[in-house]
């Protein structure tokens, strides 16, 4: 039978639904009888969701960056205005 260590090692693939066939079933079976690994997998899902949530609040563009972008967008617009179009 699959060891807890092996289960933990492949748990990301399991939660992302990337496992198929026997590997998937052997993990499912192990999780059915092992509370410790079930808890690990539950915490792993929570961790992944927490990271996504943390990611949503991260890296805003700086004000200088936005100002530069706006300026260049206007320059680009002027350069691409065809006469008569």
């Amino acid at each position, binding site marked *: 039978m699959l060891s807890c260590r092996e289960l*933990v090692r492949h748990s990301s693939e399991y939660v992302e639904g990337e496992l198929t066939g026997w590997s998937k079933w052997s993990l499912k079976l192990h999780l059915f009888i092992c509370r410790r690994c079930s808890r690990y997998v539950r915490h792993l899902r929570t961790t992944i969701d927490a*990271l996504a949530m943390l*990611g949503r609040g991260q890296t805003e563009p700086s004000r200088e*960056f936005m100002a530069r*972008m706006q300026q*260049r967008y206007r320059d680009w617009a002027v350069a691409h205005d065809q006469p008569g179009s």
Partner: protein
Amino acid sequence: MTTNQQTAEEKQLIARLLARDDAAFEQVVREYYPSMYAVAAAIIGHALADEVVQEAWFSVLGALPRFEGRSKLKSWIIRIVANEAKSRLRKESRSVSLEAINESWATDPRFAPAGHWHTPLPNWESDTPADLLAAEQLRDCLKMRMAELPDNQKTILNLRDMSGLEMAEICNILEVSSSNARVLLHRARDKMLRVIDKFQRLGEC
């Protein structure tokens, strides 16, 4: 038959960008910034990431009239920023290495030699992401520990979990095998899980 994945929303956005709509441009630049920045920084480093994102946007605008909507707009833009970063990297003749390092599960002290749990995780008091992240100390701690991850693990964690890109897309941009990427991703996630676990048990980072 033509496959057309372009949504009405995307079509409208493209039309607004081509019609020199400042507000639409600002909105889309802000919206895509975290993913674009993560990709650029992953390839070329933080110092030049902003510059690369900026250049990528002007390649995007230039090519936009010919965008055929065979892929989603965001995927297309992500590919452009990746290419921009890579060509920049070639100019600087540096290279990135994303080899998976061999941190062994075999010697992981959480498991007994036979492979069962030696020190199993306890239940967590806060069990939802929102509850967990309500603690500012934990948010800071996660960011700090993330910054300390090996570059390759940090990059993949950032692109996959923080920015929500698809694995296939990530392997494509970074030119890594999917098995390699998976190993790195899971290592990084497992470390972040342990950061949360320690915080839950001891209230410290």
